[in-house]
């Protein structure tokens, strides 16, 4: 059976259950499905967040996610994966990103999902701008995201 790879950049929200269904429907060779939902949360302690605005580089965003999806497929025995990244204005409590991985075995599904999230954070061309009571500002990249992505580098 062929692997199912779905990659979408969209303004609309996603439905985790429907995406899991699309990845597993009619199949009996899948033992593990991992989903990661990244959700917009209110600020850490400080000023309350009104919303995030997600900007992306159309064309490159899809290309970069596809490259990493292909790498995940080559590194782990996956039966399929789904990446959906939202763009536009997103308020606290709303979904930002979905990564789904399906495999015969749980370790492959977990590792591929973590790999994809680490790379989305550091390598896919998306930028977050935060709006709060004081105005709006671009989110700074975090060193720990680079460190998380670096652990997947093959020596």
């Amino acid at each position: 059976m062929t692997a199912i790879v779905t990659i979408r950049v969209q303004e609309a929200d996603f439905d985790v259950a429907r995406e899991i269904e699309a990845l597993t429907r009619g199949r009996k060779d899948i033992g593990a499905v991992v989903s990661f939902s990244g959700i917009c949360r209110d600020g850490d302690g400080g000023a309350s967040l009104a919303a995030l605005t997600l900007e992306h580089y159309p064309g490159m965003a899809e290309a970069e996610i596809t490259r990493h999806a292909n790498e995940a497929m080559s590194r782990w025995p996956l039966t399929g994966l789904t990446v959906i990244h939202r763009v536009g204005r997103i308020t606290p409590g709303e979904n930002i990103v979905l990564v789904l991985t399906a495999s015969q075995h749980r370790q492959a599904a977990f590792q591929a999902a973590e790999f994809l999230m680490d790379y989305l954070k550091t390598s896919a061309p998306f930028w977050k701008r935060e709006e709060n009571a004081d105005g709006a500002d671009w989110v700074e990249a975090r060193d720990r995201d680079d460190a998380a992505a670096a652990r997947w580098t093959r020596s």
Partner: protein
Amino acid sequence: MKVKYFAWVRERIGKPEETIEPPADVRTVEDLIGWLARQGETYAYAFERPRVIRAAIDHSHVRPDAMIAGAREIAFFPPMTGG
């Protein structure tokens, strides 16, 4: 050559894209950042910390020493914060 800008690079320059014709001695991405930074105040502001700027040629990440010859589209942007 088409150039695109994203996030605060775009905001500082004040436009999302433009077509440029750099001189022949601008050979690398790093050269191009230096040349753009001299095109006016908004450019100087956008590229004031050149080490922070990331670049892509034709939708692939590239390093500052990448050659720009043959590029159809070069993009400049801050470190990514998606996911």
